[in-house]
């Protein structure tokens, strides 16, 4: 069985995560589209912390019934990996857009220096 203290600490941590993310969105320091994965992480960890029967059942499926909190760690790790991978795709897109903008600036400045209209 999952120790009760693990369940309590897990639930408190998940709730804190959700609250911090919501506060960041409220303060416009985090865009909703980048917050969704974090909120999902918090929600899943909260459910697995509170729903002790479920955690035990899953631990049985995975062959770690002697220590069910391992499932909690595994799921948390999986979600963190998802968030990181998501950020890698975001960075790649930003890099491409950044280069595109730099190229456009170079082309537009050259046109301006010739005195020809920017869309000729």
């Amino acid at each position, binding site marked *: 069985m999952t120790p009760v203290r693990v369940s309590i600490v897990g639930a408190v941590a998940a709730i804190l995560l959700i609250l911090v993310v919501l506060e960041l969105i409220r303060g416009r320091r985090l865009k909703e589209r980048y917050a969704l994965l974090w909120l999902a992480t918090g929600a899943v960890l909260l459910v697995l912390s509170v729903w002790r029967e479920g955690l035990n059942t899953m631990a049985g499926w995975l062959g770690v019934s002697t220590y069910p909190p391992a499932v909690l760690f595994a799921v948390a790790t999986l979600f963190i990996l998802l968030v990181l991978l998501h950020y890698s795709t975001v960075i790649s897109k930003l890099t491409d857009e950044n280069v595109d903008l*730099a190229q456009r600036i170079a082309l537009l400045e050259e046109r301006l220096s010739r005195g020809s209209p920017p869309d000729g």
Partner: protein
Amino acid sequence: MTARRLVAVVPAWNEAGAIGAVVDEIKAVDPGIEVVVVDDASTDGTADVAESRGAVVLRLPFNVGIGGAVQTGFRFARDEGYELAVRLDGDGQHDASEIPTILAPVEAGEADLVIGSRFVDGSGSYRPPLARRLGIRVFARLVSLLGGQRVTDTTSGFVALDRAGIELFAAEYPHDYPEVEATLVALRSGLRLAQVQVEMRERTTGSSSITFVRSLYYIVKVMLALLVASLRRYPRLQAARR
């Protein structure tokens, strides 16, 4: 040489010592060639030197890497309606007097992309160190295999393009260590590729961007890019051709 408008794209990063001669040499081949120097945010006044020699200078606001710089030049060629383009490096390693040679297959309508290769017929004098020679050969074999056409020199930055080639590379060009991947992209997009034997000079100033430390990243990055490029679908460009 030609009545059709020709642009020479010259990427340069901190090549103030070499760029002036490069521009002069190209203009000496034919004053009608529009020399476009793409300054990749140099800090040594490369852009001003190029401009003083009569080149059109595209100044990138920050360093975007060789591929992004070259692509800027091709975007210029596309937007300004040029029919032909050659690309030479800003360090002076490519001999501008060979421009008519690498341009010939494009002008004859036989190819969309001509690579100035150091290894077409074995007559070239370029003998790189063993490790680099091996790398060049492996990439050439790989691109030949994946692209379905024998390519002898995939790392050459001395190329000529027609309008179809300009449009492809303006839209799609890899950002770092681009030459190998660009060759495969061209083949898979259906561009007709030709190769012409050229000589390359030892660089006069500056140093090659490929240092020993970076070569491992180079190899891994290019291998991954080739793998991905061969899995991707590219629109065939037959329709864009004259």
